[in-house]
């Protein structure tokens, strides 16, 4: 099985450790993951802002880059959601029937990380160690668009040393919403502040989620509040091993 990593434009530019950890984790589980250099973006920022014409070349590049792989793994619920639910719309609007066909063939092979681990590899214990108290925020697109359900929680429960505490009103949106965070900044911040309050109430040291975009928003609010709670991507937690801990100490 040839597996490609779709790292996402955001992780590539701002959170390379999440990309590195996804690759490290997959390799540890025996997946020889490749990184096709032609990749750029899934087109979600354009689609969600209403720029469908502008999304077409981005979609075309996505399809061209990944269609030769058996599976594509991405550490982002919203990017996987975009591929599965929005690419068809963009492709249809482009009027390019061949593109629509190719994109429809590819979409079901694109997996969010926790889906790939649990459904494709069939593992919940990925051999990770992470000492600390953690709470988990299920991001909206993973939860509702993809239906990842409790897969990330199943994975976290198997991590050695990790104490998982429940987040109140966990399924509520954090208020990020892509360009919503800028277009409706005041509302975005107001929603996020309630999420932050719930995070702080857990007493956890780390907030984990499967989407860097939401984490950037929540993390930005947490650090503005000098709350002392860190945000981490699911991949960053699952990649940690006993050996990493020893190396660090």
């Amino acid at each position, binding site marked *: 099985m040839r597996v490609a990593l779709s*790292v996402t*434009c955001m992780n*590539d*530019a*701002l*959170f*390379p450790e999440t*990309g*590195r950890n996804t690759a490290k984790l997959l390799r540890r589980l025996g997946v020889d993951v490749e*990184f*096709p*250099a*032609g990749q*750029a*973006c899934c*087109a979600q*920022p*354009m*689609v*969600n*802002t*209403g*720029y469908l014409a*502008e*999304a077409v*070349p*981005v979609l*075309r*590049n996505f399809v061209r*880059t990944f269609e030769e792989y058996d599976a594509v793994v991405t550490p982002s619920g919203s990017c996987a959601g975009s591929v599965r639910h929005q690419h068809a*719309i963009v492709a249809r*609007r482009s009027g390019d029937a061949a593109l629509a066909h190719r994109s429809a063939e590819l979409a079901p092979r694109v997996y969010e990380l926790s889906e790939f681990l649990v459904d494709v590899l069939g593992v919940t214990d990925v051999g990770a160690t992470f000492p600390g108290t953690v709470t988990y925020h299920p991001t909206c*697109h993973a939860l*509702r*668009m993809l239906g990842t359900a409790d897969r990330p929680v199943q994975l976290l429960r198997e991590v050695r040393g990790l104490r998982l505490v429940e987040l109140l009103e966990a*399924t*509520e*949106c954090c208020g990020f*919403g*892509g*360009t*919503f*965070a*800028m*277009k*409706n*900044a*005041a*509302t*975005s*911040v*107001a*929603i*996020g*502040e309630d999420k932050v309050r719930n995070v702080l109430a857990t007493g956890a040291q780390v907030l984990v989620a499967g989407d860097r975009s939401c984490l950037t928003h929540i*993390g*930005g*609010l947490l*650090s*503005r509040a000098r709350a002392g709670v860190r945000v981490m991507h699911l991949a960053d937690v699952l990649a940690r091993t006993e050996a990493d801990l020893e190396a660090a100490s």
Partner: protein
Amino acid sequence: MTGTFLGMPPFPEAARRALEDGTLRANLDHATSTIRAKRDAVVAEVEDWEELRLAGAAIKDDVLLRLDEHLLTLETSLRAAGAVVHWARDADEACRVVAEVAKAHGAHEVVKVKSMATQEIGLNEALAAEGIDAWETDLAELIVQLGDDLPSHILVPAIHRNRSEVRDLFRSAMGESGVPAPDDLTDDPARLAEAARLHLREKFLRAKVAVSGANFAVADTGTLVVVESEGNGRMCLTLPEVLVSVVGVEKVVPSWQDLEVFFQLLPRSSTGERMNPYTSTWTGIHTGDGPQEVHVVLLDNGRTRALADEVGRQALRCIRCSACLNVCPVYERTGGHAYGSVYPGPIGAILNPLLVGPGADRQVDSLPYASTLCGACYEACPVRIDIPSVLVDLRAQVVDAHRGGLPGPEAVAMKAASRVLASGRLLALAERLTTPVLRIARYVGASAWTRGRELPAAPAETFRTWWRRKEGTS
């Protein structure tokens, strides 16, 4: 009299103002979380909820697909039952019909059953212009009317008010338009309801003409249906001699059997009740019982425009339960006024643009963006309206409506991003600039982002640079 939404600013601005009102936010937070919990509990009781949702959506889709046929059947049945049928293309036509009926009976006032359609067409204001007072009889609607306020929720228009605010309002305003509130009125809900009852009873007994909407209009029998909690609607539907019902054309259902599905979906989704306390049905005229003259105004007002929208037409399935409002993170913080229309929340964010069309109005164009696309509305909607997909489609329509002129900064940015993000090579080049860009953004500090949040620190190297260094492959 109730104010109007005319001249409201675009959503982001209206929302910003609403967010500053601490009482409003506390009232909304309390009300929406209470009703959410109630709804979740009663929905969980129904084992075949998903099947019911699918059935509800299917019935409505069938209606929309053959709307013309169903409406003609409805018209025939209504006439056979003794009702007078009027067709109204827009708000003006509909308001004129109601005013003419009232005038024909020399009525200077009408009592009203809570109805979204009559609010949509601004009926109270139109009647006022003709010298006719329209009295709202739904308790929450009465609170809005007495306060010269605007509705903030589909089901609970006064959701933004708490009990002590209501008491103050009853004390100060009831006397001006009828029976005053007792001097010793407290904020005890039973006392407030009693004051409203006394105030309204006089109006019920006096009014010759009543105005209503309808939740459903059964085509094969010509029966109109109103569901409610308080029973005040039933008073309006039975006591006055003349009844005018303003009904959106999408309210038609083929048969009584279809009601079975909606009578399960609607109360559980809206008030979190297993069954609504009052269900009133009326079919034309019955000699010596109820109104002796019944008019039905079948209202378009943009509905055929929405029907023509391939993605958006599903919004016409809406049964106005307000479940989508109660689960919406945006609505919960801003309340309904920020949406600038009688339809607030997620459904308002799609319905208003669908009725009016994109590109005509800045305020309406801002509505499809008043959402984080979290999908909670879709999950809650009893007739499975995929609101997030409609929002995205409407955003595209708004963007397209503004193409051609001088492109704004956003359009320029998206065009540039589209080029860069369509090529790994160009993106790699652009990423070299990320660090300086982030650094500048931090120092300028003027971006909408940094008003409430920190920016992430820029990494030493991008993922693709690291991969190339480590793997040497790409």
